[in-house]
Structure formats: structure tokens, C-alpha cells
């Protein structure tokens, strides 16, 4: 019997037991649904974090900190060791000094080292408005921003500032575009002021160059206003000069001349007692979480498939018993045992195909409908967290067909070994 005829006959037999076929395929469908959704979630999640990291970090940039002390023993006093300040969780964190920066700059492939100034400022205001708490970050041309109004081409000039949409509206601009070209003042206090004197504070004046919009990708732009690196340094120097923490930084960003050298520089830095993170490291850390979560989901999917395998074996056995006479007749008419077995294997394949198509199809439909809702709920703009790749769906369906054929082997063997004389004995 030709394969095409066998496949057609197998499909026809299934149509004659519609309810049973559908129920058996639905069991596989549950597995296909879970697997397809978790694969789509994995793809979407990885693409999303990839986009976030690409938009917020530069492949040529490494974030460098002193390696955390692993020993709890009290260190001997050296001039450098005085620079420890309390870390965020109460531990001691070593800081990077200007000497360290000069040292790092000497490493081959390093283009520049910029300490993370992160100056602490008091407030931001515009003429005629209240004062608001402000956070500042340093603008980097390599980080992608979405703009609600205006834009920055290349470097940000020293007296310019990028506001966030939230700051723009809080500071009284009805539309983001209204803020462009307006003046904002940032106020900072000099920490080294002696107790006797009045605390001195200074306003730093900026012109609004652009307003960044909320983006599903950028995390920095959502909370911080951005100023140039030089201006950060100016404010930092004003605030911290003369204090014990002046010239000591928690983080520095190292810029390498070539993206390929980032890994080498990282190795050298780690040899010198620094922790260095490249963009790839950041991405890897986030992706590990995503992969673990999806691994669990995939596991559930495979569990469902495993359960459905027994369903297929069971229904196919019943089908062989029900069709004993038909099998007998086909054998009497000269159909070989192998072809009879094949007929039942193809039936199992059809069940697997149906289940895969139903499960993956409904996952695709539900995922496509749910995507905008998920994006809205998570407030990540127009980014899709579920990405369906046709190739993945095809592989899932083909995989399930193969698994179903595997499940159909035992019943098919029973059918192929049936004695036609016994099968045709009706008395």
C-alpha cells in the first residue's frame, strides 16, 4: 500500500471516531499550548532584555567597581583603606580613587575612564514654580533615548539638560515641547561648609535641550534628568570638595577603543582586583532568570505531553480492538502486516498533528490577542513580550507528531501481528 493512501485511510479512520480523536488530541494540545507559549515568552523576554541592555548600555563600556571584600577580618590601616564607606547593605565597600583611575587608564585598549559622579543635589525648579526633589545622571551619547520633544545630536553641551516627561509636566509645562529652550535651576549644597558659617548653596542653571519620553526600553530616562559629564563633575566637585569622600567613587565607567577588547580589559581589571561588568554580562544575568522561568514552564509542557502519550496508547489499543475485522479483511486482501502497522502509526501521527496544531494555534491566537494587554499592564509601550516564531511552532508540531508515532508503536505492532483468520471469525 502506498504511503499517501495509507495516510489518507488513517485520516479517514480518525474522522469516523471524531469525539475520541478530538479528546486525545486535546490532551497533546495542552502540552503544545504550554510549550508554544513558553517558547514565545522566552523569545520575547530575551529580545526585550536585549533591547533594554542595548538601549541603556554601550558594548564599548564596562562598569567597574572595587572587588567586594570577601574576608571579614579587619584590615590594617593604609592611606588607601580610609576610603571605605558604608555600602548599601551595611557592608564595607571599597571605592575607586583618582589614583586607581589613572592606573586603569594605563591598561592597553582603554580609551577613557569616567568616574560615576552622581552628585547629590537638593532640588530642581523653574522661575515661578515650587522646588522639587531631583535626581541627576550623566548623559551618554551611546544610550538610546526616546524623546517627547527636542532631541540631542551627539554630545550634550555643558549648560544643557534633558528633562523627563514627568519632570516637565511637574515643573509646569503643559506640553513637553513648551519646555524646550526654557531655563531650569538645580540647587546643590556644599558639604564641606564649616559649622560656624551659614551653609552655602548654589543654583546651577540649565537650558532644556530635550524632554525624554517614557519608553519601554529605557530605565534611566524614567527617573533621572540628564546633564553632561563635565557638568556632573562641576556639581560633584562643588558639593564634595574638601570632604573625606571627595575623589572616591563607587563606580567608574571604562570606555574601550574597540568593542572586541571589552572582554580582554575585563580580564585585566579583574586581575587587578576590580569587578568589571560588560554589556554582555548584564544581559547574561537577566537572561539567566528568564531561562530558568521558561525552563520550569517548558517542564510543565513536557509533563502534559508525557501524560498524553498514555492517552494515545490507550485510544489506539481500543481502536485496534474495535477494528479487528477490518484489519482481518485488509490482511486477507493482501495487505502486509507492516502496512497495517503503518496505518495505525499514521493515525497516531494525525492525532499528534491535530493536537499540536490545536495547541500551538490557540497559543498563537491567545498570545497575539493578549500581547497588547500584557504590554499595557506592564507599561512597556508597544513591545511584545510573546514572540511567536513560525519555525518554533513548526518544530513543536513536528516533534509532537514524532512523539505520537512513538506512542502508537505498541498498538500498531498488535495490529500488524493480528491473525487474519482469528480476526475474521465472527461466529
Amino acid at each position, binding site marked *: *500500500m*502506498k504511503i499517501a493512501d495509507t495516510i489518507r485511510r488513517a485520516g479517514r479512520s480518525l474522522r469516523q471516531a471524531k469525539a475520541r480523536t478530538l479528546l486525545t488530541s486535546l490532551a497533546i494540545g495542552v502540552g503544545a499550548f504550554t510549550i508554544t507559549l513558553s517558547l514565545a515568552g522566552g523569545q520575547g523576554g530575551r529580545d526585550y532584555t536585549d533591547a533594554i541592555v542595548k538601549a541603556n548600555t554601550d558594548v564599548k563600556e564596562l562598569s567597574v567597581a572595587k572587588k567586594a571584600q570577601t574576608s571579614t577580618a579587619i584590615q590594617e590601616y593604609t592611606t588607601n583603606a580610609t576610603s571605605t564607606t558604608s555600602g548599601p547593605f551595611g557592608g564595607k565597600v571599597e571605592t575607586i580613587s583618582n589614583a586607581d583611575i589613572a592606573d586603569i587608564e594605563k591598561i592597553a585598549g582603554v580609551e577613557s575612564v569616567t568616574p560615576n559622579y552622581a552628585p547629590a543635589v537638593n532640588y530642581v525648579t523653574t522661575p515661578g514654580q515650587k522646588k522639587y526633589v531631583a535626581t541627576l545622571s550623566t548623559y551618554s551619547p551611546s544610550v538610546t533615548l526616546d524623546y517627547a520633544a527636542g532631541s540631542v545630536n551627539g554630545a550634550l553641551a555643558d549648560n544643557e539638560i534633558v528633562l523627563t516627561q514627568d519632570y516637565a509636566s511637574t515643573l509646569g509645562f503643559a506640553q513637553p515641547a513648551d519646555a524646550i529652550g526654557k531655563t531650569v535651576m538645580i540647587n546643590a549644597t556644599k558639604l564641606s561648609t564649616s559649622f560656624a558659617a551659614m551653609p552655602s548653596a548654589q543654583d546651577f542653571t540649565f537650558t532644556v535641550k530635550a524632554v525624554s519620553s517614557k519608553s519601554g526600553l529605557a530605565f534611566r530616562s524614567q527617573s533621572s534628568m540628564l546633564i553632561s559629564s563635565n557638568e556632573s563633575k562641576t556639581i560633584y566637585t562643588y558639593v564634595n570638595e574638601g570632604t573625606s569622600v571627595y575623589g572616591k567613587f563607587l563606580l567608574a565607567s571604562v570606555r574601550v577603543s574597540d568593542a572586541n577588547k571589552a572582554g580582554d580589559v575585563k580580564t585585566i581589571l579583574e586581575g587587578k582586583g576590580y569587578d568589571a561588568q560588560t554589556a554582555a554580562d548584564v544581559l547574561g544575568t537577566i537572561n539567566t532568570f528568564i531561562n530558568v522561568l521558561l525552563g520550569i514552564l517548558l517542564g510543565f509542557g513536557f509533563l502534559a505531553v508525557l501524560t498524553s502519550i498514555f492517552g494515545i496508547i490507550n485510544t489506539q489499543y481500543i481502536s485496534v480492538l474495535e477494528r479487528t475485522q477490518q484489519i482481518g479483511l485488509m490482511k486477507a*486482501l493482501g495487505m502486509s502486516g507492516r502496512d497495517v502497522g503503518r496505518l495505525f502509526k499514521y493515525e497516531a501521527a494525525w492525532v499528534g498533528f491535530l493536537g499540536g496544531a490545536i495547541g500551538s494555534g490557540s497559543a498563537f491566537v491567545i498570545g497575539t490577542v493578549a500581547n497588547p494587554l500584557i504590554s499595557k499592564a506592564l507599561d512597556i509601550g508597544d513591545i511584545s513580550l510573546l514572540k511567536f516564531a513560525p519555525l518554533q511552532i513548526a518544530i513543536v508540531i513536528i516533534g509532537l507528531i514524532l512523539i505520537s508515532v512513538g506512542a502508537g508503536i505498541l498498538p500498531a505492532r498488535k495490529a500488524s501481528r493480528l491473525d487474519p483468520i482469528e480476526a475474521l471469525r465472527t461466529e
Partner: protein
Amino acid sequence: MIEIKGITKTYGKKQNAFLALDNISFDIPDGTTIAIIGKSGSGKSTLMHAMSGLDRPELGEVIIDGENILTLKQRKVDAFRASKMSFIFQSFFIQPNETCYDNVVLPLEIAEVPRADRRAKVEAALSAVELTDKIRVKAANLSGGQKQRLAVARAIVNEPKILFADEPTGNLDSVTGEVVESFLFDYSKKRQATLIVVTHDPDLAAKCDAQIEIVDGKIASIKGLTQSTLGKAE
């Protein structure tokens, strides 16, 4: 020419052994219609199974066109049945949920007849049993007589040289039974095909060229076959 030589078949083992066929021998010339008659349990169905290669007796030969089908490999026997033999059973064994076309086309699929040739053959077979108008009808919607006519169409569609009919009219009333019989004899006459009918209906047996009566696994009498073949039976 079908030559049956010394067929012996036992069921069971040792002390429980039961001799179903005991040294059966006879020849059937091509185009003969022959009835195998006997009571139920006499061994006539077992003889049919052995002659068609469905069953393998311990002793004896079934030589069809010079080839002993009992020593062929299973695949060869299957291929032999698919191309040269066909069957009609007392209880039809048609697929009620399939259309008449799908029922009749089955032997052509098994024999791997090219797709292009199938439709004409199915239509010819259905027209031979006067079911042309039922080609798209589900077999379940046919009457008993029509179902057996459908089984005849399925049996003759691939133009077999040997046709086995196991109590073909056993489930039919005499009028519809006679219609089915006439189709079988017509086919045999037209195609010079050998028709082997297993029956205990003496009227049907009398319509055949020859009759072999089986009693307790042995040939009790042979009518209508030439003397030379009779000699072998003794």
C-alpha cells in the same frame, strides 16, 4: 490451475490434537466454479484458508500457476493475494462509515494500482453489481443485499483470477441471495476466473461446475472434476 496436494492441518498439541484437514488432494482447472460443501466444523473453511495462503498447514502443497504458495515468504503471499485473489464473506465485512467508493477502492490501494486507473475500475465493478448510483453513498445506508453486492464489487475490482466466497448468501434471503450468486457466476464466466464457494446450501452448490464434500477433515466425495484428479484424492 490450482493443485492441492496432501494438505494436513492439526489444531492443538499432542493429546489434545485435532485433525482439521487430513491429506486433502485435488486439482481445480482455471475458470472452474467449485463448491466446497460440508457441515460446520467439517474443515471446509480451514481448507479455504489453506488454499488462499491465509493459513499454513503443516503438510502439503498449494500450487497455483506452478508456484507453491505455502513455501513463499509472507510478503510474497500477501502480494500474491493482493494481485490474484479476493474474498467474499458471509457477514460482508464492509466499512459502514465509508462510502461505497472508499470500500471498493481498498483492494486497488493494497495492490498499489496507480491512482489514475482506480476510478474507472471502481466504476466498472460497481456497475457490474448494479450499484453505480450508490458510489457516493455511505455503505451503512445500503440494504443487506446491496451490502453483499458491494462486497462482490470490492472482490472483483482488481480482476482476481481466484475468487473465494465463504457462505456468500448465508445472511441473505433467497431472492437477494440469487442476485448475488448471479453476479459471482457472471464474473467467473466473463473473466475465466476460478470461483471457490464454501457453503452448506445444496442449491448454491448445485450451480457450480464441481462439488467437493468434506466430512471430518476428509474428502467424502468429489463431483464434476476429471478422473485424474479424483485419483489423487483417494
